């Protein structure tokens, strides 16, 4: 059968189509249609020939099947070390097979690939560190996801996710009006306690332009208010763009390459329009990876960099603390065992391991910080990365995946976990709901606000 009404090779580009797909409960019709979806083998092979470059070809060729990657993969570890979860097997038996067959694969095989690509790999890139040849299965799975997406074999939620980006330019249905309105609302709600606080929209030549995750204006706008408080206390000349404020990219997880490029260009346009000295985003890992690490390549920027220096929130925060723009009251520092979740996307992908620990050194009483083992660039994925958190069909597999993080946290003996990444935060919350180990979790912003040494007169006490 050719294309389904909901499950097909076309991306979602209209609000109508988006709502129609959303109204399909649990993607029941969508997945039923997928069973019948034909594979355009010619197009698949043509795409591979056009897009698969030397690095991936070499990687597929030179894999020695040594199995060194096996233990590096947390999914292999939590799934009883079955051979099907060995990273090199996972990619060779999917992408490797498609390439070997020159794209001549059938529907059943594509559905198998979808399952492996979205429920057996979170693109955390840990295996790449342990491969003697430096082969990174996370990168290859991202590529495979693109091929699958182009053929319509993508989980229902991620088809919707990238559709949201295409229709609303945000991962959720937050329009420009909603966003600007939220900025006004949060400024109103916060300015009474913090006289002089504003959330300036579209201000030219600011010191910092701030971008965020659409989940924040949609459900947790206080996160924006907290960012505003910290910028205000630090005396930062900052702004948010009315358009191009959404930094996340579910399209990256969905493998919708065209949309990835569009997302990031939208943010870059805002940077060029407002000309800030620097840009920073919210506490989110994949958003940073999409906009700062991978984005420049999608956008075809020759220097491989965004238009202006684009730092992660932890970098901005560490700098503000280091330079004394934000002062911590020593009496309010954390005085209980606390651990830190390293986000794969900005720690392994951009090396921001030390700067997060610098923040810890300001906010935790010496002796109370407990590292997870392993940590920094060796740390494991939270268990819900790469879109895994959001896919209903693979919820069971995701819950198994959370066990690694649970064990790591339990081993620290800490009840408080700092998670400066939205996705890790979600995963850790979920693991507490699922396994009830009695922990709390927090972003950095509310923690820091609670321990600030606030200059006289800056905050009105009620």
């Amino acid at each position, binding site marked *: 059968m050719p294309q389904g009404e909901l499950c097909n090779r076309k991306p979602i580009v209209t609000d109508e189509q988006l709502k129609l797909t959303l109204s399909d409960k649990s993607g029941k019709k969508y997945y039923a249609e997928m069973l019948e979806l034909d594979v355009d083998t010619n197009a698949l092979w043509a795409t591979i020939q056009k897009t698969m470059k030397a690095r991936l070809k070499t990687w597929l060729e030179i894999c020695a099947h040594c199995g060194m990657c096996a233990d590096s993969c947390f999914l292999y570890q939590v799934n009883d070390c079955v051979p099907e979860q060995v990273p090199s097997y996972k990619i060779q038996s999917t992408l490797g097979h498609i390439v070997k067959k020159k794209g001549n694969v059938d529907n059943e095989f594509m559905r198998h690939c979808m399952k492996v690509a979205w429920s057996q790999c979170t693109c955390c890139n840990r295996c790449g560190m342990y491969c003697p040849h430096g082969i990174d299965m996370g990168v290859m799975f991202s590529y495979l996801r693109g091929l699958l997406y182009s053929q319509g074999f993508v989980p229902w939620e991620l088809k919707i996710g990238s559709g949201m980006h295409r229709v609303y330019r945000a991962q959720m249905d937050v329009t420009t009006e909603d966003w600007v309105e939220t900025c006004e609302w949060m400024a109103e709600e916060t300015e009474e306690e913090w006289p002089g606080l504003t959330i300036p929209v579209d201000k030219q030549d600011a010191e910092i332009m701030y971008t965020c995750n659409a989940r924040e204006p949609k459900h947790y706008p206080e996160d924006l208010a907290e960012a505003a408080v910290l910028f205000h206390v630090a005396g930062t000349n900052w702004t948010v763009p009315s358009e191009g404020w959404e930094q996340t990219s579910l399209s990256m997880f969905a493998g919708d390459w065209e949309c990835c490029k569009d997302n990031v260009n939208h943010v870059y346009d805002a940077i060029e329009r407002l000309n800030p000295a620097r840009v920073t985003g919210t506490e989110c890992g994949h958003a940073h990876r999409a906009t700062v690490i991978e984005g420049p390549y999608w956008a075809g920027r020759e220097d491989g960099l965004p238009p202006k220096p684009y730092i992660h929130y932890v970098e901005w925060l560490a700098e503000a603390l280091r330079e004394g723009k934000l002062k911590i009251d020593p009496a309010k520092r954390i005085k209980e065992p606390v651990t830190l979740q390293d986000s794969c996307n900005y720690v392994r992908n951009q090396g921001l391991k030390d700067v997060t620990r610098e923040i810890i050194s300001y906010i935790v009483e010496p002796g109370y910080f407990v590292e997870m083992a392993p940590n920094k660039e060796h740390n494991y994925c939270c268990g819900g990365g790469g879109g895994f958190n959001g896919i209903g069909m693979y919820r069971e597999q995701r819950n198994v995946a959370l066990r690694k993080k649970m064990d790591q946290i339990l081993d620290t003996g800490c009840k408080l976990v700092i998670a400066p990444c939205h996705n890790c935060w979600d995963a850790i919350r979920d693991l507490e709901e699922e396994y009830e180990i009695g922990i709390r979790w927090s972003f950095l912003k509310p923690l820091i606000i609670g321990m600030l040494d606030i200059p006289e007169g800056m905050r009105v006490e*009620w």
Partner: protein
Amino acid sequence: MFKKILLATTGSPASFGAARVAFDMAKRYGSEVTIFHVVGVPTKAFSHVVNDVRTGEEVEVDEEYLAWVEEELKTTFAKQFEGADNAKIVLTTGVPAREILREARKADSDLVVMAASSGENASFHKGYPGSTLQKVAKAARCPVLSVHRESASYWGGFSNILFGTDFSKQAESAFKFALSTARELDCDLTIFHALDISGKVLDQNEIEENLIIARKRIRETYVPLMGDFKNYDIEVWEGTPYVEIVKLAREKSVDLVCLAHHTNELDPERARIGSTVEQVILRANCPVVSVSKPDKV
């Protein structure tokens, strides 16, 4: 002044008192009442799946589910809906406090009416105003009226209003609200200050001196603002403020207590309304309105 009432409800028995007051007000004063219900907090990483507020189970929010919830609410409040021409139901998903605030702002509501707690886990929650009320009371631009107990003295109209003051900045807004309500609805207004002597050792002369000072302060602060409004009296008692407020409310058959909201806690999870307001909400026989902002008064 109560043109638009936002009744935020879980639909559970804990909110029946609040619903009764909201609908009574709407009928009596010709207000528009919106029954606002958050069907659940988005679970995990995607927003169209929520935990149902009653069962706690994960459900997908689709038209069928929304229609079912709406039907449930209509059945729950069937009696109240009778004769309420200007009532509608609005459903949404999200974090309850945030969505109530969003709706109140969007609809430019004049009053939010809600229960003190959702009533779940009665043994724990009954003694405390829930976090949703805490957060809404802290940030709402309009007065927030809460009904904790099925009111004994409240028969559907306001005729006696008690305004309790601690002379704070917020109390000015609460006073304005109390006065304009009293004026508009032709009520008696009692302006009250409780001299806080809890945990203190004071001699009788000192207490009496302070009572005189407080009385004078009320006269100087509030009387000039009342113009030709004469239906008021002033009371100053000593004791533990919330106890005295509740006692006076009972003695005078008050049907609305109006207080200012205070908190200096930033974290909305931990933000308390202020111990006096909180205790009065839990103990008073009538609805209690908390006012924290100068708008809508």
